[in-house]
């Protein structure tokens, strides 16, 4: 399996580390917003533990640790291992004004 890093070009998958589903968003509750503790807990439980088991294309985080050390978001078919697109994750590179995780 070879992955086309948007910075380095196509490389062997041994240079990359897989993190997982890129779709969960970290719940963002303002302090003292009046939200019930149960709802906050449920939202974090979803975020930390619950994942869809997708057969087909899914968006995933990959880390190019053996190369440019950038976090990437890839669209990969979990059935065929076909990569449809690989882009930099938010926050990668100083030119990008967005901080990671935002």
């Amino acid at each position: 399996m070879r992955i086309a890093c948007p910075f380095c070009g196509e490389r062997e998958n041994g240079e990359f580390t897989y993190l997982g589903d890129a779709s969960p968003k970290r719940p963002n509750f303002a302090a003292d917003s009046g939200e019930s503790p149960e709802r906050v807990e449920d939202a974090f439980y979803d975020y930390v533990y619950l994942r869809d088991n997708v057969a087909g294309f899914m968006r995933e985080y990959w880390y190019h640790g053996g190369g440019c050390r950038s976090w990437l978001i890839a669209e990969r078919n979990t059935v065929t291992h076909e990569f449809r697109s690989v882009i930099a994750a938010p926050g990668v590179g100083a030119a990008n004004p967005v901080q990671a995780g935002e």
Partner: protein
Amino acid sequence: MVDYLWNTQSPLQKALVPGCHGATGAHPGVTLREVRDIVLVQVMARRGKAAETAKAAKKLFGVEAPATPKAVIGKTATLVWSGPDQFTVIAPRTDEASQLAAMAQAFTGSASLSDQSDGRCLIRVSGARARDAIAKFSSLDLHDSVFPVGTAANTSVDHTAVNFWREANGTDGHPVYNMLVFTSFSDSLWHTIVDSSLEYGVEASSAKAA
């Protein structure tokens, strides 16, 4: 009272045995050289300051810093791409303190610098069979059409991070590849390169950066 004496020494002090090894012939297929006495600084643009960093680099080195995996030769140093909005500056060591001071001043406010002069070891592999030897331990495609002179790559060799770039062909017309590796891994990488080169004949040496 104990007096401590600190002597700088090459990380390849033990591994590097100067001379010819392996197959004997008129010309060794691979020439392996440790390039000593370098000044090496990692330049990382700060968030939102990529344009300022590029401008400062242009002013100091007289060339555009590489925005893609390339190595460019500037006035006093070679700039090698090492990731998005970051590059490595490599220069022969003349007066280290003033070399570092000039860079610190040039990039004030735009980039973060990290002095890696004694943290990395620079190994230069060249010769008619250099590409064949490297192909045994690297997954990079080094064909001229993909990896011409001036191309750079961050890659993983033997599970070790390596900054790799190709400079102008040697006087013999054969390609010249540079590998920058953590000093603590240089010994292991050196042995890997020598072992891969033995069948072509390898000439090992060290030299001051020029």
